[in-house]
C-alpha cells in the first residue's frame, strides 16, 4: 500500500495532462492518495506509541516523577503524523 502511494499520485498527474475531465478525476485521485498516506502514518505512529506508552506507564507506576518525561516520550512518534500532514499541502 505504502509504496503504491507515489505511483498512484504519479498516475493521477499524468492523467491530468490529457484533458479537462481527466483533470478532475486526477484531483480526486491525488486527494485519495494523500488521505491514505496520512492514515497510514497515523496507524504507524499509533503502533510505535503502543510500546512506548506501555513502558512509560510502567515507569510512572514506579516513580511519579516520570510523568512528564513519560508523556513527552510517548508522543514523540506523533511527529510521523505531523510530517504526513505536509503531504496534504503538497498534492
Amino acid at each position, binding site marked *: 500500500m505504502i509504496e503504491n502511494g507515489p505511483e498512484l499520485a504519479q498516475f493521477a498527474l499524468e492523467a491530468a495532462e490529457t484533458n479537462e475531465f481527466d483533470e478532475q478525476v486526477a484531483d480526486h485521485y491525488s486527494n485519495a492518495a494523500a488521505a491514505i498516506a496520512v492514515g497510514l502514518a497515523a496507524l504507524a505512529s499509533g503502533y510505535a506509541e503502543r510500546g512506548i506508552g*506501555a*513502558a512509560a*506507564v*510502567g*515507569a510512572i*507506576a*514506579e*516513580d511519579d516523577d516520570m510523568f512528564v518525561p513519560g508523556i513527552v516520550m510517548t508522543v514523540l512518534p506523533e511527529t510521523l503524523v505531523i510530517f504526513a500532514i505536509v503531504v496534504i499541502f503538497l498534492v
Partner: protein
Amino acid sequence: MSTGASNPEYVNARVRSRRASLFAEEDYRKLIRMGPSGIARFMEETEYDREINELGTRFSGVDLIEYALNRNLARHFDDLLKWSDGTVYDRIARYLRKFDVWNLKTIIRGIYTDTDPETIQTDLIRAGELPDSTLDRLVEVDSIEDAIDVLYGTDFYDALSGAFEDYEETGALVPLENALDREFYEHLLDDLGRPTEGPNALYVEFLQAEIDFRNARNALRLARSGADLDPAAYYIDGGVLFTESELSRLVGEYDELVDHIAENKRYGDRLSTAFDRLRDAESLIQFEHALEAALLEYADRLSSIYPVSISAVLSYILAKEREVENIRAIARGREVGLTETEIEEELVIL
C-alpha cells in the same frame, strides 16, 4: 499459563526502575559497620520499610532482618508475575518455580521434623507459582504422603510420588529433595527448542549456564568432600559443560575437573579469575561466590544485548537474590562477631 499478548515493554520499564534502586557498593560498606539493629534501621529507610514495619512488633534483631528480606523478595517477585502476560509470564514463572521448589522443601522438612505450621509459614518465600491457598493447606498437613496428595495436579505431584517409595525405604529426605530439584531444572528448558539467534537464544543460553554452574558446583563439592556418592544421581541434564559420563569420570579427578571447566569455550575466559583463586586457595566458598558473580555479570551482559526482552528480568531476579543474600550474610556475620574483612569475603558484589 496465561494467554494473550505479552507486554515486555511494561515489565521492562518497571524492572529496570527497581533494579536501579537496589543497594550499591557504598551501602554494603555502611552496612558492614553496623550491628543488627542498625541494619534494621537502615533498611527501614529504604524500600524494605513496609516489611520491617509489618514484622517489627513480632521479631527483633537478625530474625527481623531475615524475615523482612524473605517477605520483600516474595513481594517483588510476586509483582513480576502480576504484571506480566503471555510469553513473558511463562518465561518468568518458569524461572520463579525455583521458589516453589524451595517452599516445598521447607514444608517437607518441616513436616519431617514436626515443626509447627506457624514456624514453617514464616520460612516460606511466597514468590513461586503455587497459589497461597495451596501453600497454606500444605503447611497444615501432618504427613508427607498427605502433602504429596495436596499437590495433585501440579508438576510436582508425579516427581514426588515417584520418589516417595525411595523415601519410605531409606527414611531420608534426599530422594524427595533431589526429585524436586530435578523437576525444576529439567523443565526449565522445556519446549524452548534450541534457537540460534535472537532474545530466545540468549534466554536458553542463560538457563544452560545456570544448569552448568549448578552441575559444576555439585561436582566440585563432591570432588572436594570425597564423599562416596553417585555423581550421576546429582547430574542435571540440559547443560553444555558436562555429559553424564564425563561428570562421573571427572569427579574422581579434582584437577582434571577444574581443567575441564577452565577449558570450556563458553565459560573459560569469563571464569579465569575465579579459577586462579580456586587453584590457589583452599576455599570452595570463594569459588562458589565467583561462580555467582559470573552468572550475575553474564545476565547483565545479556540484558544489554536485547534491551526489551526477558533478559533484563532475569538479571533483576538474580541481582535481587544476591542483595538479599548479601544483607543476610552481613547480619548473620555481625551477629556471630566476624570481622569486617571476613564479612566482606562473604559478599558477592559486582
